[in-house]
């Protein structure tokens, strides 16, 4: 084909203190699935935001069909047939699923919104994506994974000719991802151009035709997927060799002693949940989207009420009704939706990181701000958080770096039971490996970790034991030796 679908020419973008994009030029062909790869903060989201009119001010130019475009707002981009799945879940919780999907382009009849058609159209998309919730459900009643599906459905709704996906699968499990890929393949066949950002490299090899790699805002290169292997990809992204696999390097260190025991926990969306967590154990929780994993964790942490059930900590019964009681008992919860549950937008890195452990930095009623900053810098170094600036607002960080801030918040508390809900959500391969090492060192110190994850490789690679959920009930408890994708999926799907 003659002209490329999209061509970026010398694009640069500067944020306070950060050169997010530095003279980036490359092209994307018609009807290809083009992966955009790079570490956290490499500039992927920024590039997409420029394409889609979220940032109107930048240097360089963007051409679509050889015509220079400069969308002043997302609405102009959508009008021009350029749609996007945003990295963060960004929905209006009080409105219905259909209203969210159709937002901005509601079908009308006689000037009024044609609700039957809207529900029909959006329902069709949802069915195709394998979603089981109704278009008329309120978004606020859905699980995070379900919300992510809505984000994808939104982009599909517009019948756009260019669609970009910024990490669409962070809260999706294999089954939902499968559906998505099926849809992407169909779109591709229709000649629609797709940009795909993900840190899950396996996905890239399944779906992408070519990949462009960014590092520190600079273009490293564009490769045909057929010509490159995973290790080469990682090396060009990170600049060094990193194991891309979630594997335990240290020996298992599970001890006899029980840290936490849950008996017959019951609430509206789950029932009869009993399990225990041992010292030094990583306990994995697998299941499909909406299977109730998150709700169980929130119930244990005292964030949601339960109907019945008992909790034992170190063998003693504990009454946890509120998160602060959980914190006092040494339980920490890394929530799955960082934007709405993880951090305070108007606060900087140091304050967000210190929020759960502020007691530690308080003397004579006053906060020692210096100590709080030092703590922040410590974790910034440990996790490779960029930019290394405690005063930076968390909302100005890249998605992966935000996740690191939330993680550091809980590590700062020194809790000995850590519940991680999708801990590596949006984290790049290099940092992922670092987080896995961190988890190993935590369990080596005798802590216990519950890891809820939708990434099966991670569950299989890291867990000492895995509990598989199906529709709010425990479907199986699998020891490490028996773990593989087929068996987990089998139980997760209720077979």
């Amino acid at each position, binding site marked *: 084909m003659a002209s490329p679908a999209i061509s970026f020419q010398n694009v640069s973008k500067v944020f306070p203190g950060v050169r997010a994009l530095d003279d980036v030029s490359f092209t994307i062909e018609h009807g290809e699935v083009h992966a955009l790869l790079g570490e956290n903060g490499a500039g992927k989201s920024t590039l997409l935001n420029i394409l889609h009119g*979220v940032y109107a001010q930048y240097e360089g130019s963007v051409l679509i069909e050889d015509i220079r475009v400069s969308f002043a*707002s*997302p*609405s*102009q*981009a*959508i*009008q021009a047939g350029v749609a996007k799945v*945003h990295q963060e879940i*960004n*929905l*209006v*919780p*009080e*409105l219905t699923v259909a*209203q*969210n999907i159709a*937002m*901005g*382009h*509601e079908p*009308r009849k006689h*000037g*009024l*919104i044609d*609700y*039957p058609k809207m529900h029909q159209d959006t329902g069709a998309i949802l069915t195709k994506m394998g979603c089981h919730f109704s278009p008329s459900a309120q978004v606020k*009643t859905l699980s995070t994974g379900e919300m992510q599906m809505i984000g994808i459905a*939104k982009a599909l709704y517009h019948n756009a000719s260019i669609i970009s996906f910024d990490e669409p699968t962070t809260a999706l499990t294999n089954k939902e991802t499968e559906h998505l890929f099926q849809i992407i393949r169909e779109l591709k066949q229709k000649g629609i151009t797709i940009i795909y950002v993900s840190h899950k490299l396996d996905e890239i090899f399944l779906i992408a035709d070519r990949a462009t790699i960014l590092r520190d805002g600079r273009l490293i290169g564009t490769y045909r997927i057929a010509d490159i292997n995973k290790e080469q990809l990682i090396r060009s992204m990170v600049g060094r060799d990193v194991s891309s696999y979630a594997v335990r390097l240290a020996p298992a260190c599970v001890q006899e002693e029980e840290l936490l025991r849950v008996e017959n926990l019951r609430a*509206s*969306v789950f029932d009869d949940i009993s399990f225990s967590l041992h010292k030094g154990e990583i306990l994995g929780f697998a299941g499909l989207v909406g299977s109730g994993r998150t709700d169980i964790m929130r119930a244990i942490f005292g964030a949601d009420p339960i109907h019945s059930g008992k909790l034992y900590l170190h063998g003693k019964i504990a009454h946890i009704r509120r998160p602060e009681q959980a914190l006092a008992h040494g339980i920490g919860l890394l929530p799955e939706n960082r934007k709405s549950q993880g951090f305070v937008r108007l606060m900087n890195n140091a304050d967000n990181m210190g929020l759960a452990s502020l007691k530690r930095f308080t003397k004579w009623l006053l906060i020692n701000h210096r100590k709080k900053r030092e703590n922040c810098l410590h974790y910034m170094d440990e996790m490779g958080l960029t930019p290394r600036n405690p005063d930076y607002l968390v909302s100005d960080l890249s998605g992966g770096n935000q996740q690191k801030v939330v993680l550091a918040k809980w590590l700062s508390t020194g809790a000995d039971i850590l519940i991680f809900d999708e801990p590596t959500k949006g984290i790049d391969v290099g940092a992922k490996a670092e987080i896995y090492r961190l988890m190993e060192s935590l369990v080596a110190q005798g802590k216990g970790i519950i890891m809820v994850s939708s990434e099966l490789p991670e569950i299989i690679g890291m867990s000492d034991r895995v509990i598989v959920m199906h529709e*709010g009930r425990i479907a199986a408890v699998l020891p490490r030796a028996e773990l593989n994708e087929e068996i987990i999926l089998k139980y997760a799907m209720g077979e």
Partner: protein
Amino acid sequence: MKSIHVGRIFKNRSSSLVVVLLLLVVVFSVINPIYLSVYNLVDIIEQATINGLLAIGITFAIITGGIDLSIGSTMAVVIVTTGLMLVNGIDIWVCILAGVALGFAMGAINGFMVTKMMLQPFIATLGSMSIFRGIAYILTGGWPVLRIPKTFRTLVDGDIIASIPSSIFLLFAFALICHIILRHTRQGTYFLAAGGNEEATRLSGVNTDRSRLYAYGLCGVGAALAGLVMLARLGTGEPTAGLGYETNAIAAAAIGGTSMAGGRGSMVGTVLGALTLSALKVGLVVLGVDAFWQYIAMGSIIVVAAYFEVIQSKLEKRMSRLRKA
């Protein structure tokens, strides 16, 4: 318009308010049966019109996550302007249209400050509240506009059927139109969406600034209609009119389940809120409650009505969960 079911209209969280309202009526009528006379019930609605119109308008502003403190002053400007036009013999319908347009324009000025100048709604409309009030005074030199023509008064507030004045129909017509705007037009959805999550709405390709501007404009229209009714009802256009009326309008909206944080609210709820406040007020008058105790009664019922709503929405949530599970 098949999709507008009366049942649906009443379902959304407003049912608790209906209960509160009925409860109030029952209690008051048991204490003093005169309360139940038809006259009094009409009276209750009649006394709710001005506040109701204001409240419907301000519900738009609140739903988008804003507020409009200037509605009382907007009312006053509309009152004196329309009043001056009327006494100068300008055609009634021209005057009415001019008044409504003026209200929209003043609302849009607030909208402009909030969107383009990016001022906080509270502070922007606190400013315009003062400015508009000044304008109302200056327009007439502080004097009231006297002798509003009878024709106008009859048209806007005269009895139509039995002793039910046209302003009551105006209230319900405006409420219905606003309900349709909110629930059945794009802009209505955008109002709710912008109030619920501005960023998400903007990223969906909605011009949220324009929507918010419209919302303030509609708020101004509500104030203008309230002004016209007041002008017709009193036959005099006072520049001091509407002083402090914003509080009651906001109260009606809030009692009706509109979230002050934006993103949630309904016109049915707001109208019921205004009716509840007026039923309460009339009830206290009928009972002849001591002025000091009226403060306590009024405050308590506001709190109780709001608490009822909270409990109902909690129950509803639990129910829907059970249904799902």
